[in-house]
């Protein structure tokens, strides 16, 4: 059955792959973007929205509700990195990443769940990260924000389970995206060496986990953290 899907940060990378995967299976898909809309947005409703701004989030949802209907599947993917070692990390470097990745997730989930409650159906999927469980030198802010999504997701899962709303986290390992392209060759090799499956994920492989959790078949799965990390986080997640 065709659902109304919103993917935040759906203009590139994992978000765009998710948006395309949902569109390909016949869902009505909206994406939000902060900077530039995707080059090829065929069939996707693109709405500008900075998830650190509660009013922008509200306006974006209202636009989507008016055009496509209430959001039934929310993929909270919008996020940023600001990598640096803790001793170099200012308070603002820490807070800004938390605001975008974690509080942003709270903003969109809270706005979405009101309509899901009335409909007595909902799927919320947060895009976390393997480093949220393992930690990563240079990513204290990012890892903290992604770990925080787990507590948020599970609390939401408990609060809204009675309305048939499932809330889960997909935790990717390293993925072939722009966000990763900035990484040096040495670091890249080191990471590929550390991953048991010996490579990075494609964005489609993350999208596959997301569309599964959003499906009717996954209706009994809630509060989980699903790693899609080539085995990298085994034991930590």
């Amino acid at each position, binding site marked *: 059955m065709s659902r109304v899907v919103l993917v935040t940060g759906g203009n590139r990378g994992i978000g765009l792959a998710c948006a395309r995967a949902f569109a390909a299976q016949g869902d009505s898909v909206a994406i939000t973007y902060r900077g530039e809309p995707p080059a090829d947005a065929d069939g996707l409703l693109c709405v500008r929205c900075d998830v650190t701004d509660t009013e922008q989030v509200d306006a974006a949802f209202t636009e989507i509700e008016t055009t496509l209907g209430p959001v039934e599947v929310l993929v909270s993917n919008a996020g940023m990195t600001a990598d640096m070692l803790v001793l170099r990390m200012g308070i603002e470097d820490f807070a800004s990443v938390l605001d975008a990745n974690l509080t942003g997730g709270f903003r969109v989930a809270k706005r979405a769940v*009101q309509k899901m*409650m*009335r409909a007595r159906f909902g799927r919320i999927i947060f895009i976390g990260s393997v480093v949220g469980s393992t930690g990563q030198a240079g990513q204290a802010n990012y890892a903290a924000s992604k770990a925080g999504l787990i507590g948020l997701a599970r609390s939401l899962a408990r*609060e*809204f389970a*009675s*309305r048939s709303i499932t809330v889960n986290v997909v935790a990717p390992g390293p993925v072939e995206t722009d966000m990763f392209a900035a990484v040096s060759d040495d670091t890249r090799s080191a990471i590929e060496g550390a991953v048991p499956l010996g490579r990075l994920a494609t964005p489609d492989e993350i999208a596959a986990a997301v569309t599964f959790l959003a499906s009717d078949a996954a209706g009994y799965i809630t509060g989980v953290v699903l790693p899609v990390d080539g085995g990298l986080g085994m034991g930590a997640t």
Partner: protein
Amino acid sequence: MSDEAFEKFKACAVKVLSVSADQVTMDARFAEDLDADSLDLVELVMELEEVFDVSVDESELEGIETVGQAFELVTSKQ
């Protein structure tokens, strides 16, 4: 207490809690009589805020167990 206001209140309760209008009496207890869980109450408060154009603070909801108490709370703000 205005009958019109109570009719408005009843309509919200019927819509949100999926109960019949005659179940919504002043003495009706949300949990025991109307089978409303905490999420139902949040939904009801949101609907009442919209319909009565008032704003209810989280702290004011404490101790609200009956229809009568909720009705008093909401109408006292108008």
